[in-house]
């Protein structure tokens, strides 16, 4: 995640200077914070609204011309029609390709909101931000996406200001306590996205409609839809690769992967994978642990 740039709204600075702290912590999480030697100092937030002006680049209007060439290093697979029969309706080729401009725009929106949240945390003199929540939603039907990231800035009681950027984590309360007890320290939240566009080939379309390898082979048995499997596998691999690039030797814990698919028109769809997790660094070896003692609760 990127570093903040330093241009807080005047109202924010005035509110931060007022004295009383605000937080998004529940009472148990607040108590756990105090146990760890943290004091909450403010609810910090960052926003960014992005317009997806390039979302339809490479859309269906290009079908019929040559396949999209792809950006260097991006995932790209072409599927040629094996039938040799060409007509205006028949698909001469199909394609899976990574939409790196979507991934880049998403990364820019998320990173901007994240940096703005960190900027507020630094202004408060925070050592870290706990209990981070992020939401990504549409704020109009014009393709405008809003990124909103918020969390509770904390300071280690009695410690001098940290020379490094505040750490961040989705965790709070006892779950965060156990992270420290297990020998990990949070570094940052990690979020990445992968977007793969699928232009179904004739074979893929036939198989998804149950028609077999050609439109006359309706009675052939089940067959795997290779293009769809490749696209979905690629989306998951890309999102994991993007996350790994941000780890720099650290561990990624508690990963949550959300997969969404939407069809723009027949045979033209996007597969999007969103991965989020906590980047953790080991600061000591695991303490020897006893085998857990099973218990039965009498109630």
């Amino acid at each position: 995640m990127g570093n903040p740039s330093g241009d807080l709204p005047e109202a924010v600075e005035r509110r931060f200077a007022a004295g009383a702290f605000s937080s998004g912590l529940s009472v148990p999480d607040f108590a756990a914070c105090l146990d760890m030697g943290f004091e909450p100092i403010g609810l910090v937030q960052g926003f960014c609204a992005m317009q997806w002006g390039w979302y339809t680049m490479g859309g269906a209007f290009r079908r019929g011309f040559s396949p999209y060439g792809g950006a260097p290093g991006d995932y790209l697979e072409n599927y040629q029609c094996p039938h040799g029969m060409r007509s205006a309706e028949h698909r001469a080729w199909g394609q899976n390709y990574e939409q790196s401009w979507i991934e880049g725009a998403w990364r820019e929106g998320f990173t901007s909101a994240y940096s703005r949240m960190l900027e507020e945390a630094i202004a408060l003199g925070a050592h870290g931000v706990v209990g981070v929540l992020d939401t990504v939603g549409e704020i109009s039907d014009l393709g405008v996406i809003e990124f909103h990231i918020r969390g509770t800035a904390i300071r280690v009681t009695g410690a001098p200001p940290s020379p490094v950027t505040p750490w961040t984590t989705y965790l709070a309360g006892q779950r965060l306590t156990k992270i420290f007890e297990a020998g990990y320290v949070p570094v940052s939240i990690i979020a990445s996205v992968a977007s793969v566009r699928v232009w179904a080939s004739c074979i893929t379309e036939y198989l998804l409609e149950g028609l077999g390898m050609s439109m006359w082979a309706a009675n052939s048995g089940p067959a795997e839809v290779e293009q769809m499997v490749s696209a979905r596998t690629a989306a998951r691999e890309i999102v994991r690769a993007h996350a790994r690039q941000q780890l720099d030797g650290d561990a990624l814990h508690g990963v949550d992967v959300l997969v969404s698919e939407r069809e723009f028109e027949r045979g033209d769809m996007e597969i999007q994978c969103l991965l989020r997790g906590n980047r953790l660094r080991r600061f000591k070896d695991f303490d020897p642990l006893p085998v857990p003692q099973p218990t039965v609760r009498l109630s």
Partner: protein
Amino acid sequence: MTTADDPMHALDLKAEVRRAMASLETPAPYGGSTTSDLSIDEELNLHSIGWEPVELVSGLSVVSVPWGAWNWGQGEISAASEAHEQAFRYAIARLHNDAAAAGGHGVVGVHIARSVHPRHIELALLGTAVRPIGASVVTEHDVFVSDLSARDFTLLMVSGWQPLGLAYGASFVYAPRRSVGAVLQQRSQNVELTNFTEAMYSAREGAMERMQAMALALKGTGVVDVTVIEGPMPFAPHAVEFASWGTVVRRATDVHRRLHPRMVVSLDDPVVLFDARTLS
């Protein structure tokens, strides 16, 4: 266990936190990055039996169902059952490959996302590859796949058992049409529709038999944590489905190790809401 016996509670938490924070001021010591969807509790559970997470892995498949397969007919809809079997087989094979490539000996906590459409069946598996701490690489044939959580995996291993893999079975069966006479006769009666009951029984036997055969092929003793999905298909109400899957297990030690769970009584009061009548 007393507090002194428990290393997690013998820690000076505030001192540990300060030590952890200080470590952020120096560059990360290089180590192989690991990724996992396990919680810290699950990782601690794994660590307690000498295992560690390695990598988040996935396997998926999309298999077509031939056109017309769901039309009225008799007996099993073998094309759909076969498509279901293929989808599971291919996805699990890919999960094996992914896990072996990452250096895992098994995959735990596998989330199974399955959807049956009129013309195709989709399956997506996602889990965390795990291995005994520091263990060497094994081939994909020696990797096990399990939908048990890391906690359940730990419990299984502690009691002397081991997971061997996922067993699955599915059967889609037509519910035969009733005769016109039967429809007219039963129109105003509260009666069992034996055609649906028999179709469910038929689907169940087909699916369970397949799952059991897979467990035996894996040289397992049984299947635990079986998930069952059954009922009419939303897009073809005259067809019924029975699908099941679970983790095949076998005893790894000579005898089952009894766990002797300790009984605990929570001293927490149940939640009592304020009641104004208690004031009178």
